[in-house]
C-alpha cells in the first residue's frame, strides 16, 4: 500500500497513484498529497491501475478531496480502474461527481 504523486512535465496535470489498498490507512497521506496542489488549476488524475482494494473510507476521502479542491482544479478524473473497483464507484454513483474513464 503506497501512494505516489507527481506533476507532469508541463505542470498541468497532477497524478496521484495508489497501489494495493486504498482505505483509511491512507487518510493522512492522501490529504497531504492533494494539499500540494496550488491554484495553477491543473487537472487531477487519481490513477487506480494498481489499486486492488478499496472500501467506503476511500470513497469518503475522494469526496473530501473534491470538496476541498472545489474550483481550484479544472477536473478530477479517476482513471484506469480495474473492473471491480469501477463497479464500486458506479454503485456509489461516483460517476455523477467524478470523471471516471
Amino acid at each position: 500500500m503506497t501512494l505516489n504523486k507527481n506533476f507532469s512535465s508541463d505542470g498541468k496535470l497532477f497524478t496521484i497513484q495508489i497501489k494495493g489498498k486504498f482505505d483509511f490507512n491512507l487518510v493522512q497521506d492522501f490529504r497531504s498529497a492533494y494539499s500540494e496542489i496550488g491554484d495553477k488549476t491543473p487537472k487531477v488524475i487519481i490513477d487506480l491501475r494498481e489499486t486492488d482494494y478499496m472500501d467506503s473510507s476511500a470513497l469518503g476521502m475522494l469526496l473530501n478531496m473534491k470538496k476541498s479542491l472545489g474550483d481550484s482544479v479544472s477536473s478530477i478524473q479517476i482513471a484506469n480502474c480495474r473492473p471491480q473497483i469501477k463497479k464500486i464507484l458506479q454503485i456509489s454513483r461516483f460517476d455523477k461527481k467524478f470523471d471516471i474513464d
Partner: protein
Amino acid sequence: MRILVVDDQAVNCTLLKYMLEQESHIVFCVSNGKEAVEQFTGINPDIVLLDVMMPIMGGFEAAPLIKKQANDVYLPIIFITALDDQKSLTRCLEVGGDDFISKPFDKIILSAKIKAHTRTRELSLKSFQQKKLLEFHQNEVQREHEIVEHIFKNALIEHLNVPDIFDYHLSPASMFNGDLFLASPSPIGGLYIMLGDFTGHGLSAAIGALPTSKTFYSMAHKGLSVGEIASELNNMLSDLLPSHMFCAASILEINKTGRSVNAWLGGLPDGYILDEIGQVKRVLASQHMALGILESYEFEDSIVHFEVDNTDRILVLTDGIIETSDKHNEFFGEDRVLDIMSYSKQAKISDVVDAVKEFHGDIEQQDDLSLALIYCKATPLPDDEPRSFSKIPMTFNVKLEHEQLKLSDPVVQFVDLICSIEGASEHRSNIFLLLAEAYNNALDHGILGLDSQGKDTEEGFYQYYEQRAEALLQLNSGTLNFTALYQPDTQTVLFTIEDSGDGFCTTHCHHADNKSHTHGRGLGLMEEIANNISYNDVGNKIHINYCLNERATNT
C-alpha cells in the same frame, strides 16, 4: 616431403630415389601412370615426378587424373623428360604439369626445383587448413545466428495477441534489428506501445532487445504506468549495456476508450498526432534522455498526457527514416514523411517506406528503419476465460483478542485466506470490500464504541480517524470472531463477523432503519455487492452471503 616417382625405367627410379633420399625425402616409386593414379590416395604424396612415355598409361594421360585427386591443395607435378621440343613442353603444361626436369638428372637443379615446389606446396597446405577453419567458423556463426534469430522472433512475437490497431514497419540494416516495436494489451483495457532504437545496428544493437521486450511485457501485464515502465527499463539497461550504448524510446499507453494517451518520450525524433486527414494536431517532442544512460536516482519518469479523438492516429519513427540520404547526401527529413501522410486519408506506413526506398535508390541502407502508425481506437478488455470452482467444503475460523486487534489490520489476510479457494481470487476486490466494511463496523462501533456522527464534514472525517487510532491504543478488552464457510454445491461463501460489543440495536437503536445512518455509505455498497446480508437481534453479529459463481463485475 613425400615424393612419388612415376617411371617405367627402373634405373631412373633408383637414381631419383637415391638422390632425393639424401635430401631426407620419403620416396615412393611406381612404374606407370595407372599405378600412380590407383595408389595416389594411399601414398598421399606432396610432389609427383612423372615420366612422359610409359606403357599402360603415359604421363600426359595420368597428370590430369592425379591433379584431380589432389582436391584443393596445390600438388606440384614435375615432368621427367628427355624431350625438349617446344610442342612437347607446352603439352606438359596443358595437361597440368608445373615444371620439368630433364634427363640426365642434375642433382643441384633437382634439389632446387624440389625445394621451390615444397615451399609452394606448404603454403598451399597452410591456406587450405585456414580455409577449412574459416568454413568451420562461418558455419558456427551461421548456426549461432539462426539460434539467436529464433530466440528474437519468439521474444518479440507477443504483439500478435494485440488487437489490430496499428500498422508498422521495421527494416534492419543487417540481419539483426537494433530497432524494436512492442505492443501489449493492458489488464485494465487499452494498449501499451513501445518503439525503441538502440545505438548502432546489427547484433550488438539487437542484443538489448531481448531483456527490453521481456521487461516491457511483464510490466505491461501488470498494468503499470508508462513512467514506471520507462524507469524499470532504464535501470535494467543501464546495468546491462556498456556506457556508450543506450536505447532511444517512446513508450505510449492508450487507454481503453482510445481517447486518452500517456507517453514517456526519451530521445526519439518527434512523433506526431495526425488527424483524420493527416494534418499534424500535436508534436510529441522528446522530453528525456534515452533509456540506459542515467542512474536510477537521476532518471525522470514524468510523462505527457493528452486527449485524442478516435479518428486520430499517432505516428512514431526512428532516426533511420528521416536520416536516410540520397546520392546528393540530402536527408529524407520529417517534412517528406508528413507530406506523404497528408496526401490522402488512406495514407499508410507502406507509402512512406516506398518513398524512402525510392529516395535512397541503390545506396546501401545505413541504419535500421522503423516507423509505426497507431490508430486511436477503443480496445475493450479481452473476454474472460471459463472458470472453475473448488468442490471441497471449507471452513475458516479466526478469533482475535484485543491485543491482536490493536496491532494488526487483518482484513487483507482474511481476503488472502478466502482467495485460496479455487474460483475466489477473481472476487478479491469485492471480498475485501465486504470484509473491510464488516470488520471496521464491528471494531469501530462494536468494540471501540465510536460514533459515526460528524463524519460527514471534512474535519469530522479526519477527527473520526484520529479518535479511532486513539481508542485503539487504549483498548484493553474485546474480541472479534471471523468465520468463513464455503459451500461447494452453491459456490457460496458465508461470512460471519461477531464482536464482543453490545450490538448497535442496544446502543443506538432509536428507530427501525437506523442501520443506514450508523453505517452510512458502506452498508449500501455491501448490500449491492453481497447476495444477502443479515444481523442477529442485538446487532453484534453480521452474516454475509457471497456467491462466487457470478461475474465479479456484473452490475
